[in-house]
């Protein structure tokens, strides 16, 4: 009976932590590793090769006008480092050409209020908050620290805290993406198979993950202090999980003279997470040890009491 009681009240609380993960955790968080010394501002810094990247899929912006049907960048790989004072993120993606209007951005929620990933646009039943956007464009020397709370409200902040440096290399890289093929179903004789209800030909869809080697890679490093004095900025506290979203523009000039992607016509992502690795806290081991000693002490007292109360 004692065994069972001890099992229930000490092992079972651990049960939720022992349960299998419901989803692939490592694909939803950019882990900013804690390092010693200055954070790298150069995309070519060797330290970036030692940091694991998290890859996020991108979609064409279809949420609001002006929409775009397809985009150049299908995914971004993001790495992060921090030294408890400054944090740096490197966004890496395949882009066949280096163009003046190429651009990339990170977006964060500010404060406790949730914000829609489309520039913090208002939500009907939830009071939303603003977003902080770190924006880099190839033909602009400095990055822009921006704020928005709905369409048409995007503005540069009075206090600029973000730096960015980017390098484009004509190197090969592999990209993976979903490839979809539609085909009309045919019978063994080669005749189209029709839906008996509608009479229309049946369309089959095949989706597979395809891999393609492309040339051209952008690496963009955004750097900022973990905490700033600007209340329009996201404040990044080690150990927490602020939301982040990504946007990328392929600024290639088309024959018409228009840019392939600009303004709201861009590649976007949903909300994901960043996590700045907290500094090690060794006191938790001490408290664990104290708990072991206390529990053993309680055992000793109880057993001594029980022995005293038993008949000789």
């Amino acid at each position, binding site marked *: 009976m004692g065994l069972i009681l001890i099992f229930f009240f000490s092992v079972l609380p651990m049960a939720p932590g022992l349960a299998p993960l419901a989803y692939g955790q490592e694909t939803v968080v950019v882990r900013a590793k804690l390092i010693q010394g200055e954070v790298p501002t150069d995309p070519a810094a060797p330290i970036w090769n030692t940091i694991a990247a998290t890859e996020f899929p991108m979609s064409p912006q279809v949420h609001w006008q002006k929409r775009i049907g397809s985009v150049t960048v299908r995914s971004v790989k993001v790495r992060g480092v921090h030294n408890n004072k400054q944090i740096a993120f490197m966004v890496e993606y395949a882009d066949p050409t280096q163009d003046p209007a190429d651009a990339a951005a990170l977006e964060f929620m500010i404060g406790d209020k949730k914000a829609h990933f489309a520039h913090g646009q208002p939500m*009907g039943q939830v009071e939303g908050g603003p977003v902080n956007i770190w924006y880099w464009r190839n033909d602009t020397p400095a990055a822009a620290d921006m704020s928005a709370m709905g369409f048409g409200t995007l503005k540069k902040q009075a206090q600029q805290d973000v730096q960015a440096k980017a390098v484009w290399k004509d190197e090969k890289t592999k990209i993976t993406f979903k490839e979809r093929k539609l085909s009309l179903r045919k019978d063994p004789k080669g005749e189209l198979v029709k839906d008996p209800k509608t009479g229309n030909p049946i369309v089959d869809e095949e989706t597979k993950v395809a891999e393609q080697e492309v040339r051209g890679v952008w690496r963009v490093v955004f750097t900022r202090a973990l905490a700033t004095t600007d209340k329009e900025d996201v404040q990044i506290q080690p150990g927490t999980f602020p939301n982040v979203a990504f946007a990328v523009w392929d600024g290639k000039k088309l024959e018409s003279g228009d840019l392939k992607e600009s303004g709201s016509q861009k590649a976007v992502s949903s909300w994901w997470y960043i996590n700045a690795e907290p500094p090690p806290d060794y006191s938790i081991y001490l408290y664990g040890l104290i708990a072991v000693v206390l529990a053993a002490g309680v055992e000793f007292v109880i057993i001594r009491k029980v022995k005293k109360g038993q008949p000789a």
Partner: protein
Amino acid sequence: MRGPSLAIKGGILLVAVFVALKFVLPLFTAPLPMSLIYLYLFLTTIGITVYGTLSGESTEALLGPIFRFLSGEGIGGAVKSARLAVLVLFPLLVGWQTYSGLAPNTQPPAESRTIHPAPPGEFVGLSNPLPNTPENVMMGTGLYAAYCLPCHGPKFNGNGPASDGFNPPPANFADPGTIAMLQESYLFWRIKKGGVGLSVEGHPWKSAMPRWEVELSDDQIWKIIMAEYAGAGQKPRTWE
């Protein structure tokens, strides 16, 4: 022949209650949270204790084996080894629990999104004002192709070419758990007001679903709804 002691019977009852709540009940209802299971186990323990201490004899039957186990008096063999294991493991488990509780969380916060939150009252009980004719379905299919297909796909299965980067992904209408479970008025709300029109439990800040009332008329939305059901091979849930 003596049967199992009251303590053993109490232990078996606790195990049975746990197994029933954790593994059997979810076969018929939604799974219970662990906090509630702990509460029921605690109540069961109270009940066993109260029952076991109703008389001196039953108190001895309940507590005697526990006291003998703890003191080590009169036990031997495997039980003695088990006692030693408990005495060693219990403080270690307490230490582990303390450490786990204080260690920083390495996982992002769990976010449970309600997939079909309740609609606002103004969107409850609406009926499609347009007749379900082949012409209306065809017009709706054209509108679907222009506005909805990039995300929800040509097969109405949420596998559109623009869907890859969105979390949550676009709804799969061919899945019997989506539009087949909903009335047309629900779809009308979701299309008209978009993802930003969801209540907080629907996590509107994550939804890429446009607020189509800005670009489409009510009639166009009703036609799209007819086309979605026809294209996905589903029927709307009707009012009972």
